[in-house]
Structure formats: structure tokens, C-alpha cells
């Protein structure tokens, strides 16, 4: 599939920059995790940069993007400030979600990045909901929903694809097949390993792209979005890729061999796309290095920004549990911090 032509140089360079930023960001996030700056789970997308950037590149700014708990890259690709993404990982007040969501729950409404979601398969119905809104409101916004191969076994996969097809919703479902549902390989978790056909029975046709190739991913996603937007036909796209890191930082990767990882690393999307840009004269080696240094500098700034950002005020604990209004002036909450009760409104 490497035979697809390159996009215009400026576009190609932007994609490359975006992929480089994600790579350097994820590496630094992993490093910050080991330094205990980042809590909870940390799922890195190293190796999946082409799938992310290629898919996002196909979206209009008004389209909705929704992803999984592995979604720092999607936020960055959609244009969220790296400092705010890092600050969210650090649990700081300037994080995208003010420190309420963390690594698994990035969200940036302004850029219509509609969230990372912690429950496998839980985001599919929401994607259909976005599609329903677009349909109901009569605009031509489309929705791109990414989820993993593991999520294709959830009940919501079948339920949502059925409903999306039944109601002709403009949604592209992209199953990012990194070949492991956590530590269980595809062959061991899905009877049908050709994931793109899994939607056919629900009335959702399938397409396939090389998730290690940003251009192919972009091209296939763009076609899928066109079908969804213009033909009101949801589409399932399978993006085949490979994550080079464990499922999360805590993953010892006992379920796959070093040789296998090495074999795939030859297809490292950042490496191969950079090589192609040089080979086709879009950039030279110095420029590649400059882009890399720029990404590293951006990530340095992001870390500095996140470090400088204060922790959320304890008094903000109850913020946004509810939309307070005349109807909901407050609520009673038993609070572990004090012997008594707190009325929510008094803390807001």
C-alpha cells in the first residue's frame, strides 16, 4: 500500500510532525510515569501514530472524534495543547479536564475530541449518539469512533452497529487492530479474525487500511467518512497496526516474543514515513532531525507547563458533579472529609 502517492508536501510534513510529537510525547509520558508524576494507568500509543494521525487527518474540524483509554495521541492530533494533555496526566488544574479524567479520559470539546473512555466498548453507543445529533439537527457532521480489536467482542459493538445502520447514522467505526486485547492475541479472543467483516451482519460494510501507513489510513478513512456523510451509511474500518509498548506501562509483555516486536519495529510508522519523505525529497535528514528536536522541545515545554500547574483546589472537589441551576440548587452529600454533611452548592 506504500504505492499511494504522498499528499502535498506541507500536508505530509504536518502529518510527520504530528506523528513525531505523539511519539516523543508518549515516550516522555512513560518516563514521567516511572518518576511517579503520572498516576493510575498509562496506555501508550507508540507504534500507532500512523493510525491516529491518518484517521484524524481525514476529519473536518466540525466532525466528532471519539476514542478509547489510549487517547493522548488523538488529543494531540486534534490540536489540543501538549502542555494541557501533560497537565492532565499530572493531575493538575490546567489539564484538559482539570485533573478529573487523567490518562484514560482526555477530552477537548473545542476541538470536538469527544473523549477517551475507560470502558472497553463503552464509547461506541456515544458515537452513535453524536451521529444521531448530526442527523437530527440536519447538518453534515460525521463521527469517527476508534476502538480496539478487543472491543469488537463487546455487546455494544453489535448493538451500536445495528442501530447505526438501522438509523442511517453518519458514523465511521474504526477498529484499531493492534492484535492484542490487552494480552490476549486476536486469534485467541475473536472467532472471526478478519475484523472488517464483523459488521456485515449488522448492515455495516467493512474497509481495511494499513494502520502502519499514515497515507493509507488517511485515504481509507476519508473514503469511509464520505460514505457515512453523503450516503448516510455507517462504515467499519479495520486499521491493522502494532503497538510497540505493552498494553500499559505495567505490562511485562510475556505474551509476545522479542523477535516479533523486532520484526514489527522494522515497520515503525514514524521511521518508514520519515524515510519515504526523505526518499521522495520532501525533507532531508537535517530537517527530520530538526522536526524531532522541535517535538522534543515541545514536550519539554509541556512537562514544564504541567509541573508549574497547581493541583486542583480541594474546594473544587464538587465542581461539575451537577449543573447547578434554579432546579438543582444543591444536593446533600455525605462527605468523608468531615463528620457532617456538605451541601453541594456551598462548595461550588
Amino acid at each position, binding site marked *: 500500500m506504500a504505492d499511494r502517492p504522498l499528499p502535498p508536501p506541507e500536508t505530509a510534513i504536518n502529518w510527520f510532525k504530528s506523528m513525531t510529537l505523539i511519539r516523543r510525547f508518549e515516550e516522555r509520558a512513560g518516563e514521567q510515569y516511572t518518576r511517579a508524576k503520572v498516576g493510575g494507568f498509562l496506555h501508550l500509543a507508540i507504534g500507532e501514530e500512523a493510525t491516529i494521525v491518518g484517521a484524524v487527518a481525514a476529519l473536518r474540524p466540525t466532525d*466528532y472524534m471519539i476514542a478509547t483509554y489510549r487517547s493522548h495521541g488523538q488529543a494531540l492530533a486534534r490540536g489540543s495543547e501538549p502542555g494541557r494533555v501533560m497537565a492532565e496526566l499530572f493531575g493538575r488544574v490546567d*489539564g*484538559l*479536564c*482539570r*485533573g*478529573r*479524567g487523567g490518562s484514560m*479520559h482526555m*477530552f*477537548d*470539546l473545542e476541538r470536538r475530541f*469527544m*473523549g477517551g*473512555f*475507560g*470502558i472497553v466498548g*463503552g464509547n*461506541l*453507543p*456515544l*458515537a*452513535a*449518539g*453524536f*451521529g*444521531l*445529533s*448530526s442527523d*437530527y*439537527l440536519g447538518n453534515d457532521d460525521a463521527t469517527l469512533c476508534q476502538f480496539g480489536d478487543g472491543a469488537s467482542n463487546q*455487546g*455494544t459493538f453489535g*448493538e*451500536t452497529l*445495528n*442501530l447505526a445502520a*438501522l*438509523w442511517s447514522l453518519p458514523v465511521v467505526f474504526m477498529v484499531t487492530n493492534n492484535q492484542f486485547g490487552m494480552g490476549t492475541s486476536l486469534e485467541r479472543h475473536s472467532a472471526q479474525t478478519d475484523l472488517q467483516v464483523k459488521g456485515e451482519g449488522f448492515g455495516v460494510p467493512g474497509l481495511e487500511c494499513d494502520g502502519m501507513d499514515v497515507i493509507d489510513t488517511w485515504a481509507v478513512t476519508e473514503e469511509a467518512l464520505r460514505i457515512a456523510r453523503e450516503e448516510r451509511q455507517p462504515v467499519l474500518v479495520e486499521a491493522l497496526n502494532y503497538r510497540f509498548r505493552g498494553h500499559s506501562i505495567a505490562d511485562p509483555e510475556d505474551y509476545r516474543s522479542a523477535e516479533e516486536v523486532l520484526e514489527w519495529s522494522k515497520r515503525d510508522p514514524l521511521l518508514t514515513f520519515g524515510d519515504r519523505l526523505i526518499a521522495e525529497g520532501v525533507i532531508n535528514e537535517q530537517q527530520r532531525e530538526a522536526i524531532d528536536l522541535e517535538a522534543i522541545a515541545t514536550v519539554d515545554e509541556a512537562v514544564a507547563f504541567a509541573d508549574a500547574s497547581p493541583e486542583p483546589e480541594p474546594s473544587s472537589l464538587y*465542581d*461539575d*458533579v*451537577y*449543573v447547578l*441551576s*434554579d*432546579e*438543582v*440548587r*444543591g*444536593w*446533600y*452529600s*455525605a462527605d468523608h472529609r468531615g*463528620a*457532617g*454533611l456538605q451541601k453541594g452548592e456551598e462548595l461550588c
Partner: protein
Amino acid sequence: MAEMRYREALNEALTEELERDPNVYLMGQDISVFGGAFKVTEGLMDRFGEKRIRDTPISENTIVGIGVGSAMTGLRPVIELMTINFSLLALDQIINHAAHVRYMFGGQVSVPLVVRMPQGAGHQLGPTHSHSFEALYLHVPGLLVAVPSTAADAKGLLKTAIRDDNPVIFIEHETLYGQRGEVPDDPDFTVPFGLAAIRRAGSDVTIIGISRMAQTAECAAEQLAAEHGIEAEVIDPRTLRPLDLDTILESVAKTNRCVIVEEGWPHGGVGANLAALIGEQGFDDLDAPVGRVTGVDAPMPYAKNLEQISFPHEQQVIEATLALFGDRKRALRG
């Protein structure tokens, strides 16, 4: 005022809100062509069309998820789950998403969603179709929980629920659908959330009834007055979140005794919760431990006689109330 059935009051609320706001739409199993399993949505499809009155497949979790997604992006969905029993299939979307999306994304979005569903025992539907789950949803911060027990409240609270920007778990009661009550005609009539109704004034004991049990409590109160000289104040909280704890505490400060009546299970129930709140906030006003009357601590049996003794009736409320009085009930009777 017009007299109408509880289900008709709900229908009227839906009709008025569908007319008022074009972004309000209904979604659920058999709500459109069939008119709803309990006929609450009867006639709405003819009036508003299939775009706004949407029949769904039997996919509770996804239906709620679609509701959440569309609520995050500008619509105001009102979902009917056929009964509360089936909401268990949608718990992931209700709790992880409807209740938490706003909070976990730092307030960037809100979820103006209503999930309507009936609950309750008494129809010999056995263990899987007789649940009372107000306590389950009360447990979750981020959700609002309404439990209307009259036709007027059914209408007024549903209109408020639809207009509110928070996800609302709107729990109807199967037994109440056919009951008639006076409902104000004013199209702007709403019942605010967080305002308990005092169904009966009294000075000797406060009886709090949840959902249908508000009616059971009222009947018990009349008997307590007639046969035992005990004047009970009956409170229907109407919404459990937000909770009008002030009205409850004021009443208990006056009566010094409290009994809570609910249809659900005792452990972790609404009564357990209210008893704790009253203990924490009104301890120095109590003359007796807070009493509870609940459904029995067992799955709901099918056999009619067993089912009938599995959820509260007036007699249990009376007994629980008398138990708080000891020798004093003689004095009161005299």
C-alpha cells in the same frame, strides 16, 4: 385542574415538552407504533413523527449510550426503558457515562438526559421483573432521582426533568399508572426538584414514603389517627437527589420520631440512607431510633401470597410506628 390518570399526566408532560423544545426526542422499545408497554407514549408518534418518537431495538445499554452521546451534542433525549429491571443492562452507560461524563471531562459538557422507567412489585412477575432500584441510582453522584407518587407530580416532575441539564433517573411505578389524580392545567406547571411534599400534617411522628409507599404511608397515617390517636406527618420527598433534607429534619425536630417506608430491599436502601442522614443531622431531636419499613430481604417470589408479604402494606407501617412509642401510645390514645 383536570382529573387524569398518572400515565395520562406523563403523556401530557411529554407532549408539552416535545412541543416546547424541538430538541426533545423520545427513544425506547415499543414507544412509537405500539404506544409504550404501559401506554404512556400513546398517540405521540402520530403527533410528532418517527424522528422524534423513536422505536429502538432491545439494546438497553446502547440506547442509553446513544442518549448520552446525543445529549452531549445538543439534544435532550427522553429514554423509556420498559421497566427498571432492564436498566441493569444499561448500568455501564448510566453510571460510567451519563453520571460521570460531565465531571470526568472537567465540566466541558453536560448530559441533559431523562431515563424513564417503571418499577415495583405486586403483579406476580417474579424475581427479575419486580425490582425497586431507587436506592441503586440514589447511590450515584451525578444522577438526579425522581420518584413521583401522584399524577400531578408525575407531570410536574417529568417536565422539570426534561428541562434540567443533568441526567435524571425518573422512576415511575407500575401500580400507579392507572391511578387518577388532580393535575393543574397550566402548561407551565412544573414541580421543582428538591422540594418534598407534606402529604399530611401531624405532630407525633414523621413517616417518609418513597414512590408508591408515600400513598401507603398516608393510608397508614389515617389509621394511626383513627385507631391509636397518633398524628403522623407524612412526607413524600418526590426527588431523592436533590433531597429536601431540610423539610425532613424540620418535621423530625417537631415530631421526634421517624419511620421510612420503601418498597426496595433493606440493606443499603433509601431508608438506611435517610436514617443515617437523620442520625447525623437530627440526632438531638430523636426520641426513638429511626424506624424502617422495607421490602423483605429476598428476591421477589411469584406466588401471590408470598409476593404480598414481601413488600410493605399499611399494617407494617402502623406496627413500625407503634413500636416507636412504647407506653406513650397509651397516653396519646387517652
